[in-house]
């Protein structure tokens, strides 16, 4: 581990809240509005960190520990992902499994904190969250297994930079299928349209938002920051697959531009389509899993 190897993680910790800003600006552009400032998420976090909090009498220590431990899991997850050709701070064979485990931990903590409120809304969001994530997990891991099969490495920091223009030329269709699957996982896990709508105002239709309804003050700041880190982590997987490798400095800059571009694409998708009916979401997620399997089968070694 060298000092440089911490750079992608530090950049992620600093720049992650920028991504929701880019998404919202893009959506405002499509809607013909000016939209909130790019750095709005930072102001929100700053404001929330200086606020007090109100807790439900039903809640216990689980509700208070959830956001804290959830953010810790998200921060460790960030350390595992590379940015373009620059490896993550921590990497080893099979680190993709740890990444999936940490994301699952973050989710599990959010879910039990939601159930701790004793609210029907919290239960509803939690129930939907666990059902949908059970379907995204195979899509994510099978997709990454396809990349591993293509590059012969089981470490994210080795296999994502190893996907080069040559491998796209050789296995373009397979990698495109995997990229499509990872895009669906990225949108679903970050509660984006077409799976969930972060801007909805009706509790009955929410998934992620309704789980965090009861949190306020620093707890909510931790949750929002954790969510933008998760957006970064999953986005970095997709960008790492698409970005060409190369020189660490130039490649890193290209990858960062790619992250911003991905946020822009997310905004465009949110502007161009409505969310799916809840009953149709499992079909989309199963479809992503099938794409991953197809990608895996098409990669011949």
């Amino acid at each position, binding site marked *: 581990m060298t000092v440089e190897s911490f750079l992608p993680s530090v950049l992620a910790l600093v720049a992650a809240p920028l991504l929701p800003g880019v998404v919202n600006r893009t959506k405002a552009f499509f809607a013909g509005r000016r939209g909130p400032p790019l750095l709005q998420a930072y102001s929100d976090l700053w404001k929330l960190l200086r606020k007090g909090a109100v807790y439900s*009498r039903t809640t216990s220590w689980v509700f208070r520990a959830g956001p804290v431990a959830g953010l810790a899991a998200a921060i460790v997850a960030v350390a595992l992902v590379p940015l373009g050709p620059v490896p993550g701070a921590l990497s080893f064979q099979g680190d993709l499994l740890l990444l999936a485990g940490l994301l699952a931990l973050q989710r599990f903590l959010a879910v039990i904190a939601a159930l701790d409120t004793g609210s029907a809304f919290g239960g509803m969001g939690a129930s939907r969250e666990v*059902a949908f994530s059970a379907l995204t997990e195979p899509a994510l891991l099978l997709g990454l297994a396809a990349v591993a099969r293509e590059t012969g490495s089981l470490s994210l920091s080795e296999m994502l930079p190893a996907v080069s223009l040559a491998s796209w030329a050789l296995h373009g269709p397979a990698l495109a299928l995997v990229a499509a699957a990872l895009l669906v996982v990225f949108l679903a896990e970050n509660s984006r349209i077409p799976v969930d709508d972060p801007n909805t105002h009706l509790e009955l239709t929410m998934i992620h938002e309704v789980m965090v309804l009861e949190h306020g003050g620093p707890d909510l700041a931790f949750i929002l920051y954790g969510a933008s880190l998760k957006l970064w982590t999953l986005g970095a997987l997709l960008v790492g697959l698409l970005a060409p490798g190369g020189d660490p400095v130039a490649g890193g800059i290209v990858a960062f531009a790619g992250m911003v571009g991905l946020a822009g694409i997310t905004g465009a998708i949110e502007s161009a389509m409505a969310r799916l009916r809840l009953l149709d979401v499992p079909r989309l997620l199963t479809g992503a899993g099938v794409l991953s399997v197809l990608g895996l089968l098409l990669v011949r070694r």
Partner: protein
Amino acid sequence: MSLFLAALAVLLLGGLGALAASRSPRAANLLGALGAVLGCAFGGTVALRVLAGEDLPALRAPWRVPYASFHLEVDALSAFFLLPIFGLSALAAVYATGYLRPFGGRRSLGPPWFFTNLLVAGMALVVVARNAILFLVAWEVMSLAAFFLVAWEDEREEVREAGWTYLVATHLGTAFLLALFVLLGREGGSFEFEAFRAGAQPGALFLLALVGFGTKAGFVPLHVWLPEAHPAAPSHASALLSGVMIKTGLYGLVRTVTFLGTPPAWWGWVLVGVGATSGILGVLFAIAQHDLKRLLAYHSVENVGIIALGLGLGSLGWTYGAPWLAAFGLAGALLHVLNHALFKGLLFLGAGSVLHATETREIDRLGGLGKRMPATGVAFLVGAAAITGLPPLNGFVSEFLIFLGALRGGTSSVAGVAVPGLAAIGSLALIGGLAAACFAKAFGVVFLGEPRSGEAARARESGPAMVVPMALLAAACAAIGLFPGLALRIVEPAVREVLPGPDAGWRPAAAAILDRAALAGGGFLVLAAALALLRRALLRRRPVGETVTWDCGYVRPSARMQYSSSSFAQPLTELFGILLRTRKRIVAPRGPFPAGASVATETPDPFRERLYGPAFAAIARGAAALRWIQIGRVHVYVLYVALSLLVLLAWKLG
């Protein structure tokens, strides 16, 4: 070896003492637990010494039963299985002193102690027996002791039914084992394990072992007895049955494979297929349950499936000469055996503590127990997170090894390894997601929110005899998660016992990887602590208020408006409805002033309903046709005996 025999003797003496002292619940508790704890301490020492590298000479004593000998040997594989058997049993015995106390006034405590200790001794003897007859005797002692524990509360009809189902299932399994050992003995010319060899039909022997041992282990579709029997037993016994007894089936399977030599590829495919099926169906059925202990029992089916996936991958690695795949699959499977004993034992003890405090296992009648039973709540949460495979706990470590094996297999260029590897990756990922859903439900609905009934509202924490064993098990789950290198040292000798050939230095490699994962786990804990301090500092000078949960302005919220176990599971039971066939009874509200409405869901086991139910009904009909033979007079039966002897004599002479 004498220490091991002393362990068995102390266990049995404790059991007999408890039986003799049946009159006094206090004395029975004391004698039974003393025998169990001392016996387990002796036995555990033997297991640890063998795993540390000591070579214990085998014990051979003649036995007057034909073909039998009293041949015991503790090799590393046996010692590895002895470790959870003795470890969990000692803790469960301490727990039982608290758990059984309220039964003391109503029932005699002698029999449960006697059969608990007999079960422990039987399990220990199963994994060290080296003669087929001795093995089968130990197997029967274990199975019958378990039967008497399952059927202990025999005044309840569902318990009698569960006991009966278990008894039939276990003996059907034993029938396959008899055939297996007879065939092995015929090839080897002796019933000593060391004489056993594969012979002409190793495939048939493997299938016999898979069915016979798979019935005990609970592979789908041989699992139907498990969700009936395990919840019916008293909770400390449920922990032993689910935590260690079903593992003797896995031990038997692994041991048999060592007789048969290099496995052909299709054994690995079959194991991966069985593992994926058991894993996915087990967790799906678990999600749909409303009974806490039944949910846990179905989860054992899932975990046995995960272990079978590991064994299958290990077998494929062996077949194709991929030493790392073989070692990772087998090591992951064996480590999961130990880990499952820890967290499933913990969860059953936790469920027992809930049952002790509320007298109900119905998840929808519980809620809010985390505040009323804080220690049980924390212990159950650790167990739930561990069984889900979340870092930094022990479930993650063993699933990681199996998963890594699957990834190595899935990225291989040999189709015979790659396809099962992919199947294992997909099913492990799905199982992980579904298990998280299941345990979010089990922990969330039982321990969080508001109590849904008076029993739950009045619940009190259990005494230290019950809490301390749970705390120790939770600590063990965390220790293996944070120091996986130590766990690998325990597994390594057992792996070497099974896999032939030079060991490819897999352990240092695996330890280096797992240490990095554990470093991330430690980092997570440190960060979480730091963030907790930050949160406290931020809130110190700010207003922190308390109010009610947001309810959209509804004026009279009640605890029954919370999400329940069936509503939480509904998206998943709906999605997998074709497999689960959940039955719903809905009384919809009618008219402008509806008087009442209700929804009830129930998910019976489809294999029991559709496969075994009709099959056993047909057998019963067939047997009824022979009723005319049964006249009920003794002299007629004596005539039958005489006639049979005559026919046999004629056959022998002719």
